[in-house]
């Protein structure tokens, strides 16, 4: 054990990283931080999202299973989700707008992160607000779609168009996703307020955690928001296109 494989004391390693797999392992296993210079909150968000991926993945797997286990035919999504606009029946019309809105909100979120790192408080706040508004619009349209389906008689336990599992899994999974979006909107508004007030520059402490925040929180928020968007893409594909 005379050999000293790498810096043991935690000083920044004098010799260059060997690169490749060895380099990755060496960096990961080094002292203090596995992910150097990455804020705690950001690592936490990644791990949380990994866990949340399992939740949504299992929801969708369960949906696929009940869809194939039920003997009653599955309703045709082009008809169930169609919207009548100006006397014309347009399949997937509402959902196309909803998806567009949510994907756009990812764009504004990404821009907000960029401006946050530039310490441009005004633009950051505006873009965060825009993201929150787009998110709220999405939830609003989802509520509209829910009430349309409910008015047509779709219930968690019954469905005039075919298998009752359609109603149950649709309400459960889009509901769970909509809950994620709503929580995201709430946090976007809170962070917008913090940015506007300059909390991150003044090192003001949080109400609950009494910790100082930083502009990196906007990136962490962004991770969550992009994740919620990505999940929607899958829900969209599985419910509306299949």
């Amino acid at each position, binding site marked *: *054990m005379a050999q000293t494989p790498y810096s043991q004391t935690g000083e920044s390693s004098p010799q260059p990283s060997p690169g490749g797999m060895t380099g990755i392992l060496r960096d990961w296993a080094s002292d203090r931080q596995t992910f150097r210079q990455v*804020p705690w909150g950001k*690592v936490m968000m990644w791990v949380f999202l990994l866990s949340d991926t399992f939740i949504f993945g299992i929801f969708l797997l369960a949906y696929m299973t*009940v869809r194939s286990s039920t003997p009653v035919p599955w309703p045709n999504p082009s008809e169930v989700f169609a919207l009548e606009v100006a006397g014309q029946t347009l399949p997937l019309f509402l959902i196309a707008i909803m998806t567009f809105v949510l994907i756009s909100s990812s764009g504004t979120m990404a821009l907000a992160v960029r401006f946050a790192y530039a310490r441009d408080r005004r633009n950051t706040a505006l873009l965060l607000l825009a993201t929150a508004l787009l998110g709220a619009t999405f939830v609003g349209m989802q509520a509209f779609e829910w009430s349309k389906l409910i008015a047509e008689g779709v219930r968690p336990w019954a469905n005039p168009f075919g298998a009752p599992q359609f109603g149950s899994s649709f309400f459960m999974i889009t509901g769970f996703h909509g809950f994620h979006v709503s929580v995201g909107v709430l946090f976007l508004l809170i962070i917008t307020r913090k940015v506007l007030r300059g909390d991150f520059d003044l090192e003001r*402490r949080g109400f609950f955690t009494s910790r100082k925040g930083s502009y990196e929180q906007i990136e962490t928020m962004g991770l969550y928001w992009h994740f919620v968007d990505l999940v929607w893409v899958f829900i969209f594909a599985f419910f509306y296109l299949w």
Partner: protein
Amino acid sequence: MAKATPTDIDDLETADLPEMDLYHPKSFLTKWVFSQDAKVIALQYATTATLIGLVALVLSWLMRLQLGFPDSFDFIAPTDYYQYITMHGMIMVIYLLTALFLGGFGNYLIPLMIGARDMVFPYMNMLSYWIYLAAVLLLAATFFVPGGPTGAGWTLYPPQAILSGTPGREWGIVLMLASLALFIVGFTMGGLNYVITVLQARARGMTLMRMPLTIWGIFVATILALLAFPSLFVSVIMLLFDRLLNTSFFMPHIIEFGEKLQYGGGSPILFQHLFWFFGHPEVYIVAVPAFGIVSDLIATHARKNIFGYRMMVWAILIIGLLSFVVWAHHMYVSGMNPYFGFFFATSTLIIAVPTAIKVYNWVLTLWRGNIHLSLPMLFAIGFIITFINGGITGLFLGNVIVDVPLSDTMFVVAHFHMVMGVAPILVVFGAIYHWFPLITGRWLNQTLGHLHFWITFVGAYAIYFPMHYLGFMGVPRRYYSLGETAFIPDSVADLNKFITLAALVVGAAQIVFIFNLIYSIFWGRKAERNPWKATTLEWQTETMPPRHGNFGPQLPRVYRWAYDYSVPGAKDDFIPQNQPPAPDEEAAPTGAPPS
């Protein structure tokens, strides 16, 4: 909770960890009740888990009374018996063992052993405990609602879990499911803390490959939990909808008392898959921290470095990985495609390889070690023996053709109680005897401790060895009473009486242990600092018990791995991790991957 104010002491080395903000509690309330200190949260977790665990212990007594002396206890009706079984299993596995290992030992040991001042998100850590408490209270409430707790068995299989013949169909099952969902939410908050603290808040020099195996075990178990609990969460939500909203996720077309229910088209097997995708990793969520802790107990009390440290770490990681691809071995009799059985039997038996590596390494650590037969060591040796026993019967049950006749017999009960009941609990006891001086500054009474160990260890064998035999005889599990059964000989009844007597005695020994804990907190013999002469950082704190913030003005700096015991040429037979290398000492072993 905004009462907790940021620290004003200037001795915290903020440059070391810019994000670490400590809060100094101002009042009794923020210090002991709504505390954000991981050590206090750990004690809160441990106390709550122990209290609800005592309920489960009493339930097991009642079950054994019924099995040992059927027809003697009027107050135990068949429905009561099912409720006891369900609550005993659920409490022991989730609310006691998971919470105790991760919420209790994890919270206490992670920051101390890796040289951090606290968990990285203390506020969330506090929330985690309070949500856990709410889950426990909700669970306990089921004893008092109309109809009592659910009697669905701890696996809660639909359709029977929510049909009207099952006890607790009205309230019990709903509260149980809600409690589980809450538990998972609370656990996720704590679990994120444990993982991120290990990843991002280690002391200088504390590389991953210098971490004590305790931390490796808790770390890997927490990752398992964060990935396995989602599966339980989803199935719990869907079962709740099936029960409350009459959805049919898990409910097929079904006729009850001659009446067709409005369910139809769901998949009961889906629930089993989801449940066991959680359920099998859950076994390792309990076992892997025990593996880690027992490694440290053995090394410390045999004054010898752990044999094959790197192999131990990799074995933990491989066991964790494999635990996600073996779940359907709980479902051999559920009606799967036979090829699935082949796959899952193979992956199950492969787990024996890393597990056997660990057992060999423990034994080889003891080999020619300076073994001190202290209480932690006794419990550690007890664990190794019990784990080998339970593991070997696991090989029986992992094989499809052996499992099919043994399914739902007492053999299964004996197997899992040995491997994930007795074995981890022995480690819990060993760990408590080991770390009690650190936590309280006092010794547990050693005489009572020895009494506790021998009764528990010998008693556990008196309970579970005959149970294997009962299983081979074909005695089914979960039966309220055997009645007149042609293939079961009369001697089974005598054996059942014997097991019941043993169970009563072992349970009583745990009461003695609880008494010992309470007595010793106040009147125990005072302990000197680092009484076991251990190398790990939690014993090197300025004060014992460690104060808020864990370490003194300077965070410790780590120069070596956790197992420098009996190093030739060293002054003492142990070198703490934070002791700088002597001038003439060769570079300390790191256990790090070679470059």
